């Protein structure tokens, strides 16, 4: 039987994979995709909690509503993020994050 823990483990692995990608990869597009993966992991957790937190025999729909919010905001974020990546590519002629060191003190 599949319990809440199974969902949480999957979501944790998903998050860890995403985070590792964000840290380790150099290609900014891939980093971006990993970022999305981390978001999905969070969404999965929310849905899982909603499914197992039964109120009067029904799942907790507030959490599922939050997931929809997240997905919409993530869609908007994709638009902005890709625009930034394009702008970055125009100025650096590269999608390698090592080329971007503007934050250096």
């Amino acid at each position, binding site marked *: 039987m599949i319990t809440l823990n199974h969902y949480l483990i999957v979501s944790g692995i998903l998050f860890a994979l995403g985070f590792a990608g964000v840290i380790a990869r150099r290609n900014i597009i891939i980093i971006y995709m990993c970022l999305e993966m981390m978001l999905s992991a969070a969404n999965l957790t929310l849905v899982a909690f909603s499914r197992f937190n039964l109120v009067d025999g029904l799942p907790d729909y507030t959490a599922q509503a939050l997931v929809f919010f997240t997905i919409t905001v993530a869609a908007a974020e994709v638009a902005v993020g890709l625009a930034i990546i394009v702008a970055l590519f125009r100025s650096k002629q590269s999608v390698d994050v090592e080329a971007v060191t*503007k934050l250096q003190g």
Partner: protein
Amino acid sequence: MPDQETSSLPTLLLLLPLLTALVILLGNKVLKGASVALSVFSAAVCFIISFILLGTQDSSPILLPFLEVGKFRIAIDALIDQQSRGMMFIVTSIGLLVHLFSLGYMKEDEARVRFFGSLSLFMFSMTGIVLAGNLVMMFIFWELVGLSSYLLIGHWFEKPSAAEASKKAFLTNRIGDFGFMIGILMLFMANHGDVSFLGLKSSFAEGPLHEIAKSNTTFMMLAALGIFMGAVGKSAQFPLHVWLPDAMEGPTPVSALIHAATMVAAGVFMLVRCSFVIEASLSAATIIAWIGGLTALMAALMATQQNDIKRVLAYSTLSQLGYMVMAVGLLAIQVSGEHHEAGPGHPAMFHLYTHAFFKAMLFLGSGAIIYACHHEQDIWKMGGLMKHMPVTFATFAIGTAALMGVPGLSGFFSKEAILGLAFEVKNPSGSPLFWVGVGTAMLTAFYMTRMFVVTFFGKPRTENAHHAVEAPIIMIFPLAVLALLTLISPIGPVARLLQAMEPKHAENHPTVMIASIAALIVGVGAGIFLYRGKDKDPLNIKLFANKFYFDEIYAVIVQVCQDGLAWFVTGLERLFVDGLVARLPAFIATRLGSAARVLTGGQLQSYTFLLGAGVLIVIYLVIFVLPHLGH
């Protein structure tokens, strides 16, 4: 309370030359030649005042305020007694004559206004030393004569040798003053802040210093030696004697006034003023006597091989100053060691007084010769001057005879007094110092004969000497007056008036008389035998001609101990102080900075990683550490 009657004359005497010097400094553009006349005039007024002072009573008036803090006060005060009245007369009379002589000697010098201004400054400072009623005031003027001597030796400062000589004179004196100041401070502390000569004297008789002299001999010895160090510098005693011969780079009238008759004798004057300090410590007195004797003998040896007429006289001055210092030490030994009462007057002052006149005359005579020979100073390039310069010859002869101690002349009496003193002292130092004195007397007779014979007899050895003519009357007149003073100075009433010391015939010591006359005959005989009719020096003793290599040794010491040390310390300072205080913290800060810099490399990913790590740590702390903290 300062008595108007007694303080006005000394105040005028002190301030007149100072005002003259200031007026010349500020107004030389306007006054031009008049400033020279002003300087001579002020010297003349000073002479008249000191002549009037000879007839006044002993007094100790306060002339001007200087420092006053609470109970502590130092004023410009005067101590007018037999010693200062006599010294004042010597200083102002020779000062006036030198001013007059300079009118002729410096006639063509472009900077003669500066020369006369500096002379006035010197008269001011020397007056201060003679009048001084306390040690701090004496120190003040002590340094000021050093300054005027610096200015006058360096009068022709374009010449590198003159510039170096003036610097050397000032610095050597500074070393002496270092000790002098320590001595003053020690007496200041021991005598509860009173450094006036009268206060110190009574304190040594019965007071705090009397106690300390008995209980702490080391302290007293160091204080006395500190005071003596001042005299070592000023009176050019071994080992600080090196500046005086070099000081001959100055114009000859200056050499006569400052570096023969008055300023260099100030050391002796001061020692006699402070004789109570020296008498309080037998060991200090012994050291002083020996340093004097050593200087006298060494300088006489060096004088025998000099060829520059002024340098011969300079070494002779050194040697005679050594004599005086030896007398100071010997008398102190006699008084302290043998509980002997000091008689009236002081043999050192007596010798100072006779020496001042004849040595000033010799120097001015040499000035006249140098002037006549177109600034030639080498005695081997002179010769036969007797015919060309009869007056100079006559006065020079009197001076030479007096210096050698020909019986009947002033030098004979004063030298006898010192030799007699050495003979009387029953201390182990007495007898050897007596023979040192006799040996010096013999050498003196020898080198003076050498110089006299080579300069005045024989044939003229150069064109300059051949065409020499007698100096103008303005230069001859001071010579004649000084010759007269030399002749009358040993006469009883004159000597009593000026130095309270009657020429003591060493009748009770026939040995002294015989020894000194024998020394004279041997010295003169050897001189005539060796140098009559010679065109170059038959003797050649490198050690004496090169002044025992003192200059070379000191040059090495200065180079190693001062410049080398300075270089070394500068390096150390850069390395350690700057290194430890500035560079090391700077280095650590830089290292820490670059360590922190790794964390902020600008890589978004490393920031993210740190963020993640941070979150993990926080989660770990919240879950696993915090709940257990309470227990």
